[in-house]
């Protein structure tokens, strides 16, 4: 086995590329988790948005419009969840799973109804989200390989991580959101409208889920295939847990997925049984989650220890 062709510089960009579809889902889960809502419906939001993005981009040949509509559709889906869970007290997990199911069904007959085909749809008329190409980088092999030709969405993804961090920890709204997620009574008594904030984060989650979907269908690829999210929303939720709902840590979680995925793809080529390579990201995530919790439990215990005091 030639390790050089597995761990070379192209792995850096391929990690970014493979992690971005998960990253948006991760952030969609992070923002709601900050308000104590486990948004397991990201998967479905993504799927419907991916479909809308392709549909609009195909009909108008305008990728911006595609993204915009994907985001609107994402918000609509999220609002269904929000109304059901906030106004009508529905179990958020149940609603999330129902939304996922709804998304699968709706897109299935959506393809047939609006695109006149089944299963999958691709067409040259679909306008894709552009890539950022810098001519001056071409001279340098490594810089070119790592930084050139990023998809616009990959850049936006990272900007989103920074933006979310900023919003959560430096703005008024972020402070209020964090208090809502941790002790809603405190927020309520500070005159903060807890429900309104919960609706807001669900809406933002819908926007991010919409971006996630749009990236999937007109950014990362230019097609729509039934169930093309294929668990990426769930992976996003896992990455969110990994990062304890902190945007930067959760981003690292999704990068980890991307990295393992990329390495896995390369390892397979050397004859590893495909199934074992394919299950690696899942196993490693479980391991990392367990180890990090085990360690933090230990650390907390140590910190709490009375023997170390005085």
């Amino acid at each position, binding site marked *: 086995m030639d390790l050089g062709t597995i761990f070379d510089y192209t792995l850096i960009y391929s990690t970014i590329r493979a992690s971005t579809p998960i990253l948006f889902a991760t952030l969609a889960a992070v923002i709601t988790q900050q308000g104590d809502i486990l948004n397991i419906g990201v998967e479905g939001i993504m799927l419907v948005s991916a479909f809308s993005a392709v549909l609009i981009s195909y009909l108008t040949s305008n990728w911006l419009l595609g993204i915009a509509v994907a985001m609107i559709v994402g918000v609509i889906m999220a609002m269904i969840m929000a109304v059901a869970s906030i106004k009508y007290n529905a179990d958020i997990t149940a609603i999330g799973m129902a939304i996922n199911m709804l998304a699968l069904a709706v897109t299935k007959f959506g393809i047939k109804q609006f695109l006149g085909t089944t299963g999958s749809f691709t067409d040259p008329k679909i306008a894709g989200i552009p890539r950022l190409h810098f001519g001056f980088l071409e001279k340098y092999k490594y810089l070119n390989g790592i930084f050139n030709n990023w998809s616009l969405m990959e850049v936006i993804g990272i900007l989103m991580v920074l933006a979310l961090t900023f919003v959560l920890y430096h703005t008024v709204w972020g402070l209020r959101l964090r208090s809502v997620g941790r002790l809603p009574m405190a927020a309520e008594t500070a005159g903060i409208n807890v429900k309104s904030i919960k609706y807001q984060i669900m809406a933002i989650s819908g926007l991010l889920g919409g971006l996630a979907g749009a990236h999937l269908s007109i950014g990362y690829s230019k097609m729509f295939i039934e*169930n*093309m999210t294929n668990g990426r929303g769930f992976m996003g939720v896992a990455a969110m847990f990994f990062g304890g709902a902190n945007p930067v840590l959760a981003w690292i979680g999704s990068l980890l997925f991307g990295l393992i995925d990329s390495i896995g793809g390369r390892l397979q080529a050397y004859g590893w049984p*495909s199934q074992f390579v394919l299950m690696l990201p899942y196993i490693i995530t479980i391991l990392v989650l367990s180890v990090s919790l085990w360690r933090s439990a230990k650390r907390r215990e140590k910190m709490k220890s009375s023997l170390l005091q005085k």
Partner: protein
Amino acid sequence: GCSSQSSQPADSSKEETSGDNAAGSKKLRVALVYSGFLGDKSFNDSAHAGAMRAVNDFGIELKELESKEPAEWESNVVAMASEGYDLVVCVSTQFQDILAKHAPEFPDIKFALIDGVTKGDNIVSTTFAQNEGSFLAGAAAAMFTTKTQVPNVNADKVIGWVGGMDIPVLHDFFVGYEQGAKYIDPDIKILQSFAGTFNDPLKGKELTLAQYSQGADIVMNVASGTGMGVLEAAKEADKYAIGVDMNQDDVYPGHILTSMVKRVDNATYLVIESVVKGTYKGNTTEYLDINKGGVSLTDMSVMKEALGDKFPQDIPEKIAELEEKVKSGEIKVNAYEGFGRK
């Protein structure tokens, strides 16, 4: 035990004939049962195309049932048989056991199995020598990867292969592909990946890009929906791919060297035709190998047009030569366990 259902075929046929103004004679009723969904631009779509040709040519009545769930495959087959369809075509190897189990329960119904073999007086099986077609694809890929005059082709002797689910029939493809490549150049390195699913184009794309980054210039897909991602990766990375099942050459012209066509459409058309013409004979197996035109490579004309004079003309020439050798038996292509001539 299907007597209790006798009323059903009657009334549904009534509905359908009422909408049918054609000649008084009853239309032949054909059902196609898939083990997945249409729209894969490969295996299933190909069968669908064949069936549609039969609809055009013979005016048959066609019912298609798609499903991904094995439990539903079985009940779909049984339901179609109970409904009294004249011919039930099962489009996938996966129906082998289901047919073996249920065909005897419906002795008056004709069954056909595409891409698999099941014995039975009312079953016609068709299989393909995908290994032979893949042999040619492998040879073409092996030659192509060193043609540095073609843009973005490096001198490295590395080619790729991306499969959908890791199931036996895909290995039959791979065995041929590998043998073909090694036939051209024993030193060639072949990267093999499975996406683990037939409908995750993103995964297919990622795997393909990984293979490109490991030096492959051309990657064959045998991956149904996942394969869409393989082809897209070729276009995006400005590299090359090989299509499968149907002629995928013009999906991204100039990036798909050729396609290994499996004439599922022909197989479907032929079995319907045999029933129309009354030549259907149960308990037979049609082995559609390269000799019978069951598998073949496309003529690379799309690629030729795209590359112009950079197109390596020696490839189609060599492939034509190899094709003859395979046909004549001079080259014997290996098959994966459970496949090949029986």
